[in-house]
Structures are given as structure tokens and as C-alpha cells.
């Protein structure tokens, strides 16, 4: 199994979610992270610009069977893209085992993402 971690713009989340659903990927987890990188938002407080390089982003984490890796990455990539600097990144790594807590079963076949 593969773990796909995509760091995307907060504002692209809805369209990413939709794109994933269209690929029958309806199970995933996400949380908000702050990304440090080149994209910058200029903030202003009481006349002092605090030109920060810290950006709110959403990290989507999906564990898929190996055969679903490609289509998931593609769906993520096209839906998260705006073409502007700051679109984010995807990282892929290996997951060795998974368990469904409710039943105690293990193995890739217990992933809802068939």
C-alpha cells in the first residue's frame, strides 16, 4: 500500500475532494499545516508589513492500494493545480500494514478504496 500526502492550497480543497470522489476515493484524512516556502502573503498590522513566508495549507493523507496510486496522484494533481506559485507538493511512501479497528481485520483488502 502507498501513503499519498498532498499539501494543497486551502482554497483548492473542495475541488480536490470532488475529483477524488469521482475516482471513488471517498476515504481520506486531512488536517491543516503551515507551509514554509516561496509563496508569500503580505500581511499588514498597524502599519508594519510582516512579509511572511508562512502559508496555511491543507495536508491530505490517503492510503491506497498500489494499483490505485497513479489515478489518485493524477486526480490530486489536476484538481489542486492553479498554475500559480504555491500550488504545493505530493509525497508518496510505503505503508506496510493496515487494520480496520472496528473488526480487527488487516491487509490492503480492508481498505475501502478498492
Amino acid at each position, binding site marked *: 500500500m502507498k501513503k499519498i500526502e498532498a499539501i494543497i492550497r486551502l482554497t483548492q480543497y473542495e475541488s480536490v475532494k470532488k475529483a477524488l470522489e469521482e475516482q471513488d476515493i471517498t476515504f481520506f484524512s486531512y488536517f491543516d499545516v503551515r507551509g514554509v516556502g516561496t509563496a508569500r502573503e503580505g500581511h499588514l498590522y*498597524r502599519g508594519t508589513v510582516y512579509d511572511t513566508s508562512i502559508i496555511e495549507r491543507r495536508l491530505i493523507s490517503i492510503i491506497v492500494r498500489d494499483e490505485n496510486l497513479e489515478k489518485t496522484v493524477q486526480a490530486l494533481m489536476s484538481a489542486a493545480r492553479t498554475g500559480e506559485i504555491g500550488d504545493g507538493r505530493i509525497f508518496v511512501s510505503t505503508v506496510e500494514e493496515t487494520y480496520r479497528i472496528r473488526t480487527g481485520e488487516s491487509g490492503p483488502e480492508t481498505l475501502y478504496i478498492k
Partner: protein
Amino acid sequence: MDANSALDILWILIAGILVFFMQAGFALVEAGFTRAKNVGNIIMKNFMDFALGSLLFWIVGYSIMYGGEGAFFGAFDLFYNVEGDMHNLFFQTVFAATAATIVSGAMAERTKFSTYLVFSVVITAVIYPISGHWVWGGGWLSTMETPFHDFAGSTVVHSVGGWAALAGAWTIGPRLGKYNGKTNAIPGHNMVLGALGVFILWLGWFGFNPGSQLAISGDNANAVAGIVITTNLAAAAGALVTMFVTWFRYGKPDLSMTLNGALAGLVAITAGCAVVSPGGAAIIGAVAGVLVVFSIEFIDKKLKVDDPVGAISVHGVCGAFGTLMVGFFALPDAIGEGISGVFYGGGFSSVISQLIGIVSVGAWAFVGGLILFQVLKATMGLRVSEQEEREGLDIHEHGQSSYN
């Protein structure tokens, strides 16, 4: 007691109750403009300012301020309790508590709680009532040929707080990370709290200024109504002008600064609210709205004195400015027989009196505050440890975070 006297007492009490509520306003502004990790601490300081102030002003402060006709000092009678004058004790108490509260904002996020309490005691029981006596208690500033005129306390209350705040913020030094080569912004954690605080302060000012008429019977009623209008127009003008100034200067209208702008207008009109026209009030408020922006920038970026809420500019600078403007905008005979502002052909005699008052009270508050803070720094210590500051005063000074 006849109906008119009862009416006057009723009005003073209601005005005092409104001014009391300003404590909540100050607490919210200071909480909103600082970081979440220090919010319980700043509220505790505000809360204790009022608790201490109420007790101390009753125990000794009111007597120092109003207890006698000396040029520099009233009297030293303990536990004020004069039947028929308790409404005045109350009204003066809520004023006194304001001065201390101003300082807590400028020194927020780094001042030791125990030391702050000692400071709060001294300013409410000593610093404020003494200079207050000079102006309102029959002291030397009120007996000059052209008397110093500060109707509701631009100088007596706000500048005293503002200059003590300057002494304190300068003595204690900036928050960690505020100045490292350049000036950094440390955004306040909750602008809604800040805005609600300003609404509450504006509300309370309708007790602060109109209540300072100390009566509403007879012709006082129209005077009070006039003060309500001047107060409101100055605040509105201050807010509006500050918004446009920030818009032009920074490209975008800045909310936190605009909130300060309303307060700047309110502080500035406090001295002259009873003696200027509505138009005069709007102008004073508008100019204060410009002044506060440049003053905040100057103090922050040039003086490098770190004042998280802008208290020095709002209360010190705009308080002094507003007091001075009385000398320019006072309507003919409004301050006294034959005295008018410069713009009404009155010459500079009033301006000079105003300057004398501004400088003498300002020097008293600043130097008094400075000595006090230096002594506290050398003895109890004024500042929390670096670790405490980094991790938050709430956890370290009170053992608990405010948001859970």
C-alpha cells in the same frame, strides 16, 4: 431633597456606572490586541486595577484629591464616608481606576504580575490623586489667572495614564522579537474582542464626558446634551479619518488602527467637550485621528518603545493634544468670563494655561512613573523571565491557559 438635586445625583450615578463599564472595554481592547498566551494575565491586571482602585480611592485617594484646598495636595483622611457625597466618591473612583488601566496595555505581555500590582497601588493612591487635585480639587492649576481647563480629563486622567505608560514601556523594554534589526509586527490575537472593547469604551465615554458636568438639572440638561454630541462627533471623526489615513499610507484600511482612531478622538475631546462647538469637536477628533497614526508609528519605529495597544499615543499624545486644543477652539466665555479660544479671537492666554497644565501634569506623571518603575525594576523586578515570556504569562503567572 428637591427633585433637581435627586436628578443630579441620579445622573452622576448613571454616568459613573457607564464609566465603570469602561473597565471591561479596556480589558477587551488589551486582550484583543495581545497574544492568546497572555490574555488571562492582562485581564487579571485590568480586573485588579479596578478592585484595588475602588478600595484605595475610598481609603485615601479621594481625600488626597478633593479633601482640601491646598495648592498641591488635598488632605489625608482615611476611609471616606460623608453622607450626601457618596455619588461623588463613586464617580471619582471609576475615573481613578481608568488611569492605572491605561498603563497595563502599554506594558502588556511581559510585566510581572506582582510588580504590576504594586505599581497599580501607587498610581491610584498617590500619582493620580495628587495631579488630579491640582486641576479638579482646587489646586494651583485651577487657581491660575486663566485657569487650566480640562473638563473631563484628557490630561488629568488620560495623559497621566499615557505618560506613566511611556515611562513603564520604556523602562521594561520591548517584547522579545519585537525589534531585531527591524521592527516586527506582533499581531493581536482577536480583533473582535478589540472592537467590542472599543464599542464599550465609546459607550462608557457617554458617562465620562457628559457625566463630568456633575449635574443635569436646569440648564445643565442642555449642556449635557451638547457634550454628548461633541463627544460622539469627535469619536466618529477620529475613526473615519484614521481609517482613511491608514488606507492612504498602507494601501488598506487597518481595523486595529481605526479602533485606536475612535479612541484618539474620544480622548482628545475629553478636555474640551463642554466648551467647543460640534464643528470644533469634529475637527479636534479628525486631527487626533491623523495624529494617532503618526504617533503610533513614531513611538513604535523611531523611539522603539513597544506599546502593544497604542496606549501612549491614544491617551498620552492625543490627551495632550486635545487639552491644548481647548486653547484654540473654546467658544467665547465658555471657560470663564472673558476667556475664548484663539480661533474665537481670545488670544493665547488660554493656550499658555493649557500648556502649563499639560507640561506640569505630564512631567509629574512621567517622572513619577519613571522613578517608580526604576525602583520596582531594581527591587522586585519588573519583567518576567525570558522563558515565561516565550511560553506565555498565563501558564507561568497563573498556572493555566485561558483558552482550553
